């Protein structure tokens, strides 16, 4: 599969633009080949608000109050700029009046490798995780990203986080987005070590699983998914994300649902990395390559 996540997603949306006259697409001056086709075919339901993310969310809210099914598209880390608009005009307003708004951000984790940390979305999950009613979904490959398009039909608020690079396929064309918010990719043996990946780190977690015996491996799309039952028999849990550790991201979510388990998180901590300019170099700077993670886990299991 050579298509990026966002193009798989926009292809699906394009298919629905004709049959659903309420679908309205907004972008903060950010493009995609598939989005160009939407702009060409449905010019009256596609608007670029320009480089103004606060206005992006406000316009989305106004459209949604009018009953539109809104998708608001921007570079992922820049959604932090409009956190208050998300809070007031989406999360709070949604408590009173039904809204259907999907925020779609590209650039999860380190995926904008050459642009530097200003373009890295490391904190967006934990920050936006604080707003009641905003479901946060991080697909792990282009197929799951396309599958996430069906979520835009549901009432409510969601934030879809897309990698900007084309990641290796994990799923096939039979994939349907799981309502439970996760998939079990490896069942593991008896009392297995659990590896929980998110986004690009799911692919890494699969590589880690190949280096360690009999792991249970879970692709976590939704940090609010309740994994408690899945993790009952697991001896230890390792979470992997290109996101801030210990601050409300995937690791924190698992610790909350499984307070009796030992949870070790792999992710971003310390200082921003300004000199690494490839995905591998960035992941390596934070101990996030498959080799580094497998070595850490092996060390950990000795104790």
């Amino acid at each position, binding site marked *: 599969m050579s298509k990026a996540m966002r193009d798989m997603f926009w292809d699906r949306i394009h298919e629905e633009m004709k049959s659903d006259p309420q679908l309205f697409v907004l972008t903060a001056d950010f493009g995609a080949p598939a989005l160009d086709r939407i702009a060409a075919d449905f010019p009256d339901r596609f608007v670029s608000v320009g480089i103004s993310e606060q206005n992006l969310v406000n316009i989305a809210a*106004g459209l949604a109050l009018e009953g539109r099914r809104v998708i608001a598209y921007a570079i992922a880390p820049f959604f932090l700029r409009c956190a208050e608009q998300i809070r007031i005009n989406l999360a709070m307003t949604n408590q009173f009046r039904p809204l259907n708004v999907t925020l779609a951000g590209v650039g999860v984790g380190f995926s904008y490798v050459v642009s530097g940390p200003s373009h890295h979305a490391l904190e967006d999950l934990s920050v936006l995780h604080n707003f009641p009613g905003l479901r946060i979904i991080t697909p792990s490959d282009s197929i799951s990203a396309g599958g996430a398009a069906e979520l835009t039909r549901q009432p409510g608020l969601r934030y879809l986080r897309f990698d900007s690079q084309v990641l290796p396929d994990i799923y096939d064309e039979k994939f349907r987005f799981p309502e439970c918010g996760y998939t079990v990719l490896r069942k593991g043996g008896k009392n297995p070590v659990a590896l929980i990946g998110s986004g690009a780190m799911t692919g890494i977690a699969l590589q880690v699983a190949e280096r360690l015996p009999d792991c249970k491996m879970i692709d976590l799309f939704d940090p609010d998914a309740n994994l408690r039952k899945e993790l009952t028999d697991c001896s230890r849990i390792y979470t992997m994300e290109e996101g801030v550790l210990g601050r409300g991201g995937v690791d924190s979510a698992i610790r909350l649902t499984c307070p009796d388990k030992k949870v070790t998180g792999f992710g971003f901590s310390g200082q921003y990395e300004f000199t690494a300019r490839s995905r591998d170099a960035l992941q390596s700077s934070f101990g996030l390559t498959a080799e580094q993670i497998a070595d850490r886990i092996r060390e950990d299991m000795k104790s």
Partner: protein
Amino acid sequence: MNLEQLKRKSRQLWCETLKLHGQEPGIRIASSLSCVELLAALFYGGFLQLYPNQPYHPDRDRFIASKGHGAAALYPLLSDLGFFSAERLNEVGSPRTAFGMIPDPAVPGIETVNGSLGHGLGVGAGMALSLKQAHHPAKVVVLHGDGELGEGSVWEAAAFAGEMHLNNLFLLLDVNRKSMLGTCRRSLEQWERMFQAFSWKTAVCAGHDLAEIRNALTEQFSRQSDCPSVLLLDTVKGHGVPELERSELAHVMSLKPERIEALIAERMNADV
């Protein structure tokens, strides 16, 4: 409604807003008093198509009070128009009520969550965009304060509305010249030029003269235009209460119950 009747309604609104401040001293009374005449003219003057029994009727004109902390006059106004019973006004000041210091959509007739400033114009522009795309004749009217214009999101919305020719979007700007810490640095004239630069049609009127306000609103809403328009009202923060009018810190001032009583009595005894 003729001018005489409107003046009576406006006076009534002024008194009832003060009364509510007495029930809930947290209500920003100075901010609320600078837009009483505007709200009276707008809502009683037949400028808005409203459906009190169906607050979100699809054909309604949408009104957003973006200066949420100064929108208390909406409570007695919406009650009088039939959105909810007058009894509910007694809830203002109770420890548990939907009728809080800042109106929110739990109150019939309130469209959005405000209190935080600078959001109303953008959300209103989104509504206007939807209505325009659907070729729907309803309009969107947003009430703003001038202090609120400090928020960058306002200008993102203003630029967008100008560029997109959202001629179904109307801004009413309560220019009372004072925010929390005192007099704002920009003048009404400067704000007017800024909106013109953003391709808005502008007009100015005296903010407490009902005849002038009514004429200005008539002009604004009947004008054929291909761009959004703003009416800047030259108002006084705390209008009608001398100690509020002359204080730089009127924003945070509360009035005591005896003072409120005296003010209402004085106003009712004077000419309308």
